[in-house]
């Protein structure tokens, strides 16, 4: 709860700095908004850490081999970074570039998910 208030404080300060600088120097204002969003994410990482370690322990308990888990986390990370880049471009007004980034992100996620799809297909073929 406490770090939520801190994060909201950082976000507000970033927005105010963004608006103040936007009148005279729009490009530096955009850089300020990028810096603010990165700071917020870095501050929120330690809460995510406990969630991720919890996931790992759950998967150990259920006996699912963890090589399926790695692509899932990779896909989550790819999805997050793609969305971060797309939002930065959309924020700067270049929505077409943002859509291109989203498109490439989906392609890469598909690429990473291929081994899982293959293993599922082999599993089904084995059952038949």
């Amino acid at each position, binding site marked *: 709860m406490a770090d939520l208030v801190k994060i909201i404080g950082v976000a507000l300060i970033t927005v105010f700095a963004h608006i103040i*600088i936007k009148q005279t120097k729009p490009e*530096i204002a955009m850089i*300020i908004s990028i*810096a*603010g969003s*990165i700071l917020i994410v870095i501050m929120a990482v330690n809460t995510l850490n406990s969630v991720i370690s919890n996931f790992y322990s759950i998967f150990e308990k259920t006996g699912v081999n963890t090589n399926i888990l*790695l692509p899932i986390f990779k896909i989550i990370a790819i999805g997050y970074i793609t969305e971060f880049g797309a939002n930065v471009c959309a924020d700067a007004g270049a929505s077409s570039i943002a859509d291109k980034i989203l498109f490439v992100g989906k392609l890469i996620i598909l690429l990473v998910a291929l081994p899982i799809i293959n293993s599922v297909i082999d599993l089904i073929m084995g059952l038949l």
Partner: protein
Amino acid sequence: MEIIFKLAGIGLITSIVNQILKHCGKEEIASITTLAGLIISLLMIINLVEELFTTVKALFAI
């Protein structure tokens, strides 16, 4: 946290220097100072972005 204030400071100083240079007739130097301010803030943001990528990589154990 202080990086936001540093960037805001750079933005303000750049715009003030710009106004002064425009006032005393040196437009070309004014545009150069704008570029200088932009490059400095880009350099400051680069290692922050790199820190973000390493954090995400370490977080998802990739």
